[in-house]
């Protein structure tokens, strides 16, 4: 009897390991995560305006309908990416996600200022390889380090009322994310 209880206790402990392992592995094996859902409509190193969510279809769940959203799938394998997002009238933000949908950096128009949010996205290695000259270290050039080679950049432009949504979308149409050279 004791023997069976020990086997069951062993099973319970192993069950805990299985539980933790599956939770940790899930983000890397999920086939319907945000990146996978966006892959068919969003180009590599280019922005695409996402279709506005409707009750019938929504490319991602829990999208805020008060925002026009554009996304870019970046790939830093060939070098850093230069990002330019024009600021719309009300509120504009840019959020960076890793390939596995972790938001690692977000900036809004107030932090960026001027007429557009401009910054360079690169890996830590690429940043170290930058020549230490004047232009690169100029204060107005914002550099964001990506923890992964690929990922998502999502630009969101707020529309205070539904009638202004087309205006917000128009601002995002001019958004760019492309290799520097």
């Amino acid at each position, binding site marked *: 009897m004791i023997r069976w209880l020990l086997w069951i206790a062993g099973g319970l402990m192993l069950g*805990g390991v299985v539980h933790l392992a599956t939770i940790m592995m899930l983000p890397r094996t999920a086939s319907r995560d945000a990146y996978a859902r966006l892959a068919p409509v969003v180009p590599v190193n280019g922005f695409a305006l996402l279709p506005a969510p409707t*009750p019938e279809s929504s490319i991602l769940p829990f999208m805020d309908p008060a925002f026009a959203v554009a996304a870019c799938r970046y790939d830093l394998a060939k070098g850093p990416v230069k990002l330019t997002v024009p600021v719309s009238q009300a509120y504009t933000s840019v959020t960076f996600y890793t390939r596995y949908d972790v938001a690692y950096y977000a900036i809004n128009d107030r932090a960026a200022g001027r007429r557009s949010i401009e910054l360079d996205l690169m890996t830590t290695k690429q940043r170290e390889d930058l020549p230490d000259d004047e232009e690169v270290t100029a204060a107005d050039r914002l550099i964001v380090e990506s923890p992964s080679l690929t990922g998502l950049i999502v630009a969101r432009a707020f529309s*205070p009322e539904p009638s202004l949504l087309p205006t917000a979308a128009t601002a995002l149409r001019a958004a760019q994310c492309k290799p520097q050279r």
Partner: protein
Amino acid sequence: MHLLTGLLLSFIVAAGIGLGSTWYALTQNISFGALELGAWKGYPRNGTVSIDPYARAVIARNGELPVGSGDGVTFTAAADDDGRPLDGRCDVVVRGTTPPARYFTLTLYTPSGQLVANSLDRRGFTSQELVRDAPGEFEITVSPRARPGNWLPTGGIDSYILMLRFYDTSLGIATRAGREAPMPAIRSTRICQ
């Protein structure tokens, strides 16, 4: 022989407990580190690299992109202040003020994150659209039938969730519950369809 059946028993228990608890955690939305303000629950850490593994697994499975912490914070309510699940067939009143933010939006979703069809094509309110009373408080009536004032239609669905998102706000990981973050109250009425 004993060894073999013992091992088999262990593995069956391990698989059952391990996979069962993973499935439970994902479907019940188990996450840690919630900032609870009344009926509203927020996970400011979900918009950072220190997102907890359970929230990561949930997001990977449902396909959501969390709002980044430099952008804003999301709060969710699936029940009213008394803990009753939100019912789309009844009138629910959301009333009060919000913590300081440049903009906020309140949106109604099905539990799986889809918008709800209604004749008005209204999905929620932005802070700019709300009609407020003299002290600056707003009152939104979430109801299946038209109501005067700020009416948020439910389309008559059984259950729904409300999401309150604050953009460009000081609200975040450092926020403690209470006075610095006044959230609107959610009250269910007995008026049902």
